[in-house]
């Protein structure tokens, strides 16, 4: 690789590394795996010399990292089952429901005491098709999410609305339980 190419690639990594890790984190929810996926994405970019002449560097990186993260997520699915202590999303959803309705017992009460952790758990319990765009929405616009996931912008907006609606309902229930205990 020529020196100027290497300098350009290094600049791309400097600018987009953290953003790439956030995109991968939104999918994988594991820091080490997110870094691995981001690294894999940058390696792909390096192999293809794809950083030259990019019109939207950020969208391109988001798309590449999202693909790498989804591949990673598929290959390491068993290991990446999230903290819901479940083997299926449905079970995770049920566990989150138990957090929301306060029937989780002493352990659930401890978890529910940590409001932020409880909300994160609620987000985790969403179906993947809703959770991923919602998680990405903190960093990306609807258009960027659509480009990264390869779906229509309208679909992204619909999914975001549905995800927020579910979150609103569950958080309202959680808040009621929380204030009722005080």
């Amino acid at each position: 690789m020529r020196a100027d190419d290497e300098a350009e690639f290094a600049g791309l990594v400097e600018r987009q590394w953290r953003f790439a890790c956030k995109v991968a984190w939104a999918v994988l929810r594991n820091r080490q795996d997110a870094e691995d996926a981001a690294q894999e994405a940058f390696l792909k970019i390096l192999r293809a010399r794809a950083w030259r002449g990019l019109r939207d560097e950020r969208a391109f990186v988001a798309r590449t990292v999202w693909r790498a993260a989804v591949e990673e997520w598929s290959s390491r699915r068993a290991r990446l089952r999230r903290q819901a202590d479940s083997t299926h999303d449905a079970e995770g959803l049920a566990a989150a429901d138990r957090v929301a309705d306060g029937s989780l017992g002493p352990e659930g009460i401890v978890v529910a005491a940590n409001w932020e952790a409880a909300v994160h758990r609620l987000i985790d319990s969403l179906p993947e098709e809703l959770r991923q765009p919602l998680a990405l929405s903190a960093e990306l616009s609807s258009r960027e999410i659509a480009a990264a996931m390869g779906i229509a912008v309208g679909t992204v907006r619909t999914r975001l609305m549905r995800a927020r609606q579910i979150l609103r309902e569950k958080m309202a229930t959680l808040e009621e339980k929380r204030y009722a205990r005080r």
Partner: protein
Amino acid sequence: MRDDEQLEEKIDAALRSYAEPGDLCEPRVALARLRARAGQERSGWSRLRFAPRKLGIWMSAAAGAFGALVLIAGLVWVFGGPAVPQIAWVPGAPRAMTGLTAPAAPGRRAELKVMERGWEGSAKTHPNQALEVRLHAGPGREVRLPKLEVFPTPQPLSPEEQALVAFAASASPELKHEVIEGQGDLSGPITIAELKIQPLDEEDSHKQLIKKEMK
């Protein structure tokens, strides 16, 4: 309304924290790792680049050995094998035959089995290594007439047909017409012209008979 706005703000805040992976490695560390990985891949590629070269050498050697084997086999077949006798075919002899082997010494008969029914044959080798095959029709062979181009097969005319041809060639048109007219109504009754027979004179007839006997 106020509660809804607060809830939305809480959701946004939760999402921001949810999307925050925490302490990540520095970009320069990531870049160093990337360079190391790329370097490993390059060395791997160089190994792979070497492999086809080695494979090519092996394939060339194998092709050379195969060519040499083919050449040796060809030379053995041309120069080292038994003499192949040349066959002088008798015209009309069938080509389908088995068991034709060149005899060990010139002048001796060879084995021959003719596959076509009704044919018998013999073969022998001449001093000049030519194998002569002689074939002839055996006793069981059917002699068939050659296939004719015209059907049915032309036959000579019968005497009646010949007479009819002669009549048609020589008779006058009136006579032909009468014959045709006469054949016109075959379904009707046949009429025979009246016969007129004169009475015999016994004395005269007796005299004439004696004259004939005298002659």
